[in-house]
């Protein structure tokens, strides 16, 4: 095993692979692998009050991917702090808390509470396509992203990652707005808005009508966006979108990502993260840091 340690905004990860939000649950994922194995784990989006999520069905299969419209069902930040977060920190896991809200005030209230905990990093979810207010409504507006990031920046010393939506005209503008407002890193991409219709019933498959598309089908879109954003901003870029193998993760690093998050692959195989870390180990063997982070050394 070669040394794959990375420093993301001052937080040491033992390797550049993290679990993505909404695909890791300590009590369940931990049955399959040690949560200390990934560089970090991002916990499911957490809001101030408990959210019940969307009606079911919340999931549908697509060619090489899946749609989900869970709608950020979560027990609220207080239950999160005394449950999931406590459990993971007692085991020494590097934890990124994914933060959700219906309004800027709600995001800020969650950040305030999390700032008083030993959580390692915060990821502002301004990109969930499955909630009526908040989420992507912020992430598609560069002013809203800038204002929210700026407010959060003043509230906390924790590193702040802004998770970006691909459902925008130019993701680079949004990334730059986050950087200018003080974000320590950006992560991308959240899911692409998608929809399936059951031709027998003539109705949408998802109760929420639309959902977020993820999985290997979105990977080329994600790699291109990571490549463009990494050229635009100076802060670290955390890449994600359809990573199924170590070679996929390597593509993101070559596109300019400092680290990656793995989501859908873990839903399809509970042991995907340990496998991808092992495979990435083989991919990076013999390469220098400059060779690994290709776009930083300049293509195109």
């Amino acid at each position, binding site marked *: 095993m070669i040394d794959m340690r990375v420093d993301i905004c001052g937080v040491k990860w033992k390797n550049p692979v993290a679990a993505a939000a909404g695909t890791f649950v300590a009590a369940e994922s931990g049955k399959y692998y040690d949560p200390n194995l990934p560089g970090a784990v991002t916990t499911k989006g957490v809001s101030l009050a408990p959210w019940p999520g969307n009606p079911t069905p919340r999931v549908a299969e697509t060619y*090489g991917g899946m749609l989900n419209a869970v709608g950020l069902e979560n027990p*609220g930040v207080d239950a999160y702090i005394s449950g999931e977060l*406590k459990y993971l920190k007692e085991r020494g896991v590097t934890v990124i808390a994914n933060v959700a809200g219906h309004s800027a005030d709600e995001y800020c209230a969650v950040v305030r509470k999390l700032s008083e905990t030993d959580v390692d990093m915060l990821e502002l979810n301004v990109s969930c396509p499955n909630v009526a207010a908040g989420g992507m409504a912020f992430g598609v507006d560069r002013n809203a992203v800038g204002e929210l990031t700026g407010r959060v920046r003043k509230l906390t010393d924790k590193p702040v990652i802004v998770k970006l939506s691909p459902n925008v005209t130019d993701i680079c503008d949004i990334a730059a707005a986050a950087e200018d407002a003080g974000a320590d890193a950006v992560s991308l991409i959240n899911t692409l808005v998608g929809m399936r219709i059951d031709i027998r019933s003539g109705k949408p498959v998802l109760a929420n009508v639309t959902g977020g598309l993820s999985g290997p089908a979105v990977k080329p879109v994600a790699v291109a966006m990571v490549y463009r954003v990494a050229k635009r901003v100076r802060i670290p870029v955390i890449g994600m979108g359809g990573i199924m193998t170590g070679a996929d993760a390597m593509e993101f690093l070559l596109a300019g990502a400092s680290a990656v998050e793995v989501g859908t692959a873990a839903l399809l195989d509970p042991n995907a993260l340990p496998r991808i870390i092992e495979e990435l180990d083989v991919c990076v063997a013999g390469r220098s840091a400059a060779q690994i982070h290709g776009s930083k050394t300049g293509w195109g």
Partner: protein
Amino acid sequence: MTVGGLKENGIRRAEIIEHIPLASQVFQLKLHAPDVAAVAVPGQFVNVYLNDAAMLLPRPIGVADATDAQVTLIYAVAGRGTELLSRYASGTCVRLLGPNGNGYNLGAIGAHALLIGGGLGVPPLLFAAKRIRERGGARITAVLGYKDEPYCLRGMKLFCDSVYGISERAAPVSELSARASGTEAAGSEPKCDGKTGNVMDLLTSTEVGEELDAGNATVLSCGPAPMLRAVARWAQMRGIRAQVSLEERMGCGYGACVCCTCAVKPREEPAGGREASADETAGRTDLNGGIGGRFESEGERRGLVRRKVCTDGPVFQSDEIVWGDD
């Protein structure tokens, strides 16, 4: 645990031993899966992954039998994925994860086990019937409903004291009902009664009513949601405990994606109750905490307590569930 913290309970490969049609669009799949067969209990399911990179999600299928290193699954073709699965021949390997979820609590069954199944809810009850028979001590009545052709009736007759079947259309009900007692059950031919209808028609019939030992009965049920709701109501009116196995569209099938949750009633806190430890609460989608543990209204409170069908279920006590039109 192996080196590196990878646990040895993930996806494994399983060879198809036998794959036969049971009825129109309904198939029985026997897999060589010793690890799964050794531990599976009735009511649990396995994730079956297709050998196709375009169809990534697992198909969760209830266990219909587990014996001698073999796991039997019975499923219907419901879309492209199960259609592809139905074409896999013996000798093909598929990937499996499981067994998943919590099965029926057979230890809670009294003197009379009443198995109520609808369609693809029947196969898991076949496994339950077998295990209840092996445990002994309970009379077993099966009440089974089908849309068209019946399946699993022969197996049910092996393990149950009485088997009642009914179909909504196509197959004449005269072919379905097999009523016998004791050892005669195994060999007896189905008895004609010439009706069509659904499970609730059978359940409220005079014959089933005469057999029912309400004071000592436990219902185990599996089938479509409207049927389960009706069964739950029927059982509640008679003061009978019912364990129901819910069906919901799943993503991962192991509790990570939170796609398959259902609303449940909040549990009453025991007087002087202790606080759950972080180990117990970590990762649970119990939304009962709230801010300061209180909600504005009972409706809000009920809507906010959710459980995952895949890992907290699929079997629940029927009185835990907040049914659609409650």
